């Protein structure tokens, strides 16, 4: 870990002012950033502690729910409005990490987790385009069991590790941002980016910008929502595949639905093709399967992760069947 300065921000304006320093980083729970600093993968000049900023979870008059970025993961998962109106989010949060980590980790920080690709972490011994742009990628021909199958990756096959973000993608959340040029709000879907030729870029945040809140729109049918995470042990492992879904059935027909996948791409993967294919169609296992196959039609396996395509297909169908009361 390099030497750095540390200061607590008293409010958002103070945070943004301090965050304008060269190589400054905002510090939430530190559950990822501090690890990366220990590995010297991150070498910030200054840490601006934003855990004292808003952690309020507020139901707004338009029916949306505003979650302050400093809210702890545990607090978000436990909140009554989250549990009743957005169970998919509560379950996604609780599927991640461990109790100790969730007690430290913040909602804002969770959005900015970096990949768990072992070649990214192995600074001394492995090539990585995300860590050192243009260097090459040792994961493409290496251990890539946990790597991406969607998003046409070429320079980087890393996946986004968050569970919470998969639920936020499904729910169509909004992200509130403050920065040197003022405040703005973006669709959650526009926060993370696919790797393209620049996997070192992971979000559309501009230099010095700070996530201040996550807003969940009113999605009434999200009361019937689910998150299923498939992994290599029962707890404390990143998703091989995860599915966040909510579905609104009227008379056996899909009126509306949301579905997102985790563990498949450089960003939380909103399954828009699947959603479009199912809307207005009978909620049958056959239709679920056909829509899953449509969504996964472009999936490209690497040497060790071909199973994830079939696993994603099966998990999508099982989650939708569960939500619609069918037996898979």
């Amino acid at each position, binding site marked *: 870990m390099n030497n750095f300065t540390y200061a607590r921000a008293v409010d958002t304006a103070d945070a943004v002012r301090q965050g304008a320093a060269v190589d400054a980083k905002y510090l939430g729970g530190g559950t990822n950033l501090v690890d990366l600093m220990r590995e*010297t993968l991150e070498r910030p000049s200054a840490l601006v502690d934003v855990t004292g900023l808003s952690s309020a979870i507020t139901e707004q008059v338009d029916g949306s729910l505003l979650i302050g970025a400093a809210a702890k993961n545990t607090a978000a998962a436990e909140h009554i409005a989250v549990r009743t109106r957005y169970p998919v989010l509560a379950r996604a949060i609780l599927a991640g990490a461990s109790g100790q980590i969730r007690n430290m980790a913040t909602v804002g920080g969770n959005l900015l987790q970096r990949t768990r690709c072992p070649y990214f972490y192995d600074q001394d011994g492995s090539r990585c385009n995300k860590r050192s742009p243009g260097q090459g990628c040792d994961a493409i021909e290496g251990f890539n069991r946990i790597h991406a199958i969607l998003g046409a990756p070429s320079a980087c096959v890393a996946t986004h590790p968050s569970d919470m973000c998969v639920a936020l993608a499904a729910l169509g959340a909004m992200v509130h941002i403050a920065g040197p040029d003022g405040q703005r709000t973006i669709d959650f879907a526009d926060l993370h980016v696919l790797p393209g030729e620049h996997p070192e870029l992971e979000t559309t945040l501009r230099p010095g910008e700070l996530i201040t809140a996550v807003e969940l729109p009113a999605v009434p049918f999200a009361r019937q929502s689910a998150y299923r995470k498939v992994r290599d*042990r029962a707890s404390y*492992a990143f998703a*091989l595949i995860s599915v966040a879904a909510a579905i609104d059935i009227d008379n056996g027909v899909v009126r509306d639905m949301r579905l997102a996948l985790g563990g498949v791409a450089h960003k939380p993967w909103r399954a828009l093709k699947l959603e479009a294919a199912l809307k207005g169609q009978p909620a049958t296992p056959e239709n679920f399967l056909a829509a899953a196959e449509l969504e996964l039609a472009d999936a490209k396996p690497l040497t060790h992760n071909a199973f994830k395509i079939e*696993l994603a297909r*099966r998990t999508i169908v*099982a989650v939708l069947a569960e939500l619609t009361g069918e037996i898979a």
Partner: protein
Amino acid sequence: MSIKDAAQAVMKKAVQAAPDAWMPGSELDPLIRQKHGLIGTPVSRLDGPQKVSGAAQFAAEFPMDNMAYAALKYSTIAKGRIKELDTATAEAAPGVDLVMTYRNALRMKPAPPFMSSAKAAGGDDLPIMQDEEIHWNGQPIALVLAETQEQADYATSLIRVTYETEPAVTVFEDAKANAEVGIFQGQPLHVETGDAEASLKSAPHNIDVVYTTPRHSHNPIELHAVTVGWEGDNLRVHDASQGVAHTAWSLAQVFDLAEEQIHVTSPYVGGGFGSKTLWQHHILAAAASKLAGRPVRLMLSREGVYRIVGGRTRTEQRVAIGAQADGGFDALIQTGTVAMGRHNNMPEPFILPAMAAYNSGSFLLRVEAARMDMLSNTFMRAPGEAVGTFALECGVDELAENLGMDPIELRSRNEPEKDPTSGAPFSSRHIVEAYRTGAKRFGWAERRAKPGTHRDGEWLIGMGCATATYPYYRMPGGAARITLTKDGRATVEIAAHEMGMGTSTTHTMVTADRLGLGMECVTVKYGDSHFPGVVLAGGSQQTASIGASVSAAHRELVTELLKVAGKDSPLPGLDADEVIGLDGHLCQSDKPGRRESYVSLMARSGRDEITVEANAPPPLEATHWSMHSHGAMFCEVRVNAVTGETRVSRFLGSFDCGRILNPKTAASQFRGGIIMGLGLALMEETQFDERSGRVMNPSLADYHVPVHLDVPKIDIIWTDIPDPHAPMGAHGIGEIGITGVGAAVANAVYNATGKRVRDLPITLDKTM
């Protein structure tokens, strides 16, 4: 054959031909007859309060004046030479006292590698930071010493190095071409009786399949660490060790010192499992301490453990069994190849279980080792047996399926009456009983013989079983000292180890029973290389070694006390075999009323204390009897039909390991072994990138071991039948718990799904 080998062969024959009565273990340990002592009662760990309150000091917690902290930089190529090494920036970093590389390190000899002599403890025999040569990906190339750990860690990131690479063998398939038969404990790992290949072909039923197991890395919760300081030419080492005497002697060879000049202590060890022996960090820390002129603490990072502490190597095992329709084996074949480092000799001996498990008309058992440019592999809980039982016991299950026979029935039909490959009588073998009681308690009768027929929603349910087995070992070199003081208290000193298994507690119980004292009157001191004995906490042999050593010392003590007792005592003219200890007294064994208290005997002696020391007899019992521990493992799994996820829902271990000394710590040892076995079965795998020879998952986030949710209730039962030829009638039980678990899980997965997974770990992609 060399003269030495020839002489040893003659000795071996002579020992085998000697009467049983000349052997240690020919007479029952008197403690076996004693029924009302502490042995067999559940006793909590004496060091529990210290551990839970944080008062117990581990190797990296001993303070030394003016101590500096060390961190290591590791190579990133598997073979070649350092071309450029720039340490200037690191040397200039805040707090840095010293950067040690091959350029400025002391001249040191390589460590004597394990099994090269009685007290050798080194993981390999490579030069340590002596030249530019790189021998594996992860080799330490620099050590940074700084005022704080953080400063040392950071400065290592500032070291710049380039290499000239040389061709390395890092692909197992390539290495296999040059595999040679492995030599283990001086013997080739090759057993052949009859023509097994021909018998296999002609047998009416047979299976012939290949199993593979991956590399495993050691992950004791306590990281490998030393705190070292020189006092003149004497080296003080606070270590986390399972071999203090071995480590002291081996360090003495490295630094060209007398053994006594190295003082290694290790009062607590946070898990060893075969890994807490001598690795480069000991030597580098001592060398840096010498160079810097100050004490040094070197605690490896978790990554460091993966890079420089060897683990279990990968295996590829063919199992072929030919059988008659009644199940009787005509041929038992277990052959294959293991990966091995170039500079060590640990050919994972996976055939050991098959050497004594079953009768067969013929045997072909053989391990070949393929040398690779990799970190030296080493012992890891039940080396050989953990992975050998996976292949063998899955093979037996496959044959049972082929025969349409219950797998327990098939095993009992091949139950040997004597050791099937050595011909020696078994000292104690009650595995059929262990299966019978285990099957009853587990509800084996409820198992559906046809796979894939038991379903609960998405979950397929299945049961499997497998044999667990591990040899009884007792290594040479056991010795102990007992001091009896005038207040009737006894202290045992022995260079043994407490790694969390309960050794110190259990041997306090045993010694108290032997002397006839309460536990509060007995202190067992251990973990100090200046104490008597060369007692490795390995091979599950420590219990027997301590038992035999204390028994020998106890006999000396009693002889001494009877001498001082004189004619006025109630015990005149008796010898050590005619008295026992009871209620603080020495008593005539057949007339316990004739007795005198230790306090009175000591008063009679006029001395404040009597100290005796004795060596355990040579461990020849295992030359006359085939001595093994046994168990029957039962597993129930639920496999998700959608995702392939396997969850172990129930587990039972039914053990036959002689007399159980302390049921409380024993149950914990068995459970711990089984949990480690669940990891072996379902998730553990060191990801060794064959392109670079580099370990890619050197952290507990990426290298999966079971978490609480992966572990079901584990039921433990045992026969508690003493082995008449073992000290205390007991066997060490540290390793048997992991054996058989991989097969029990895999067999249960097959029963649940009809899918036979022959390649560990059983991850969901193999079952979905």
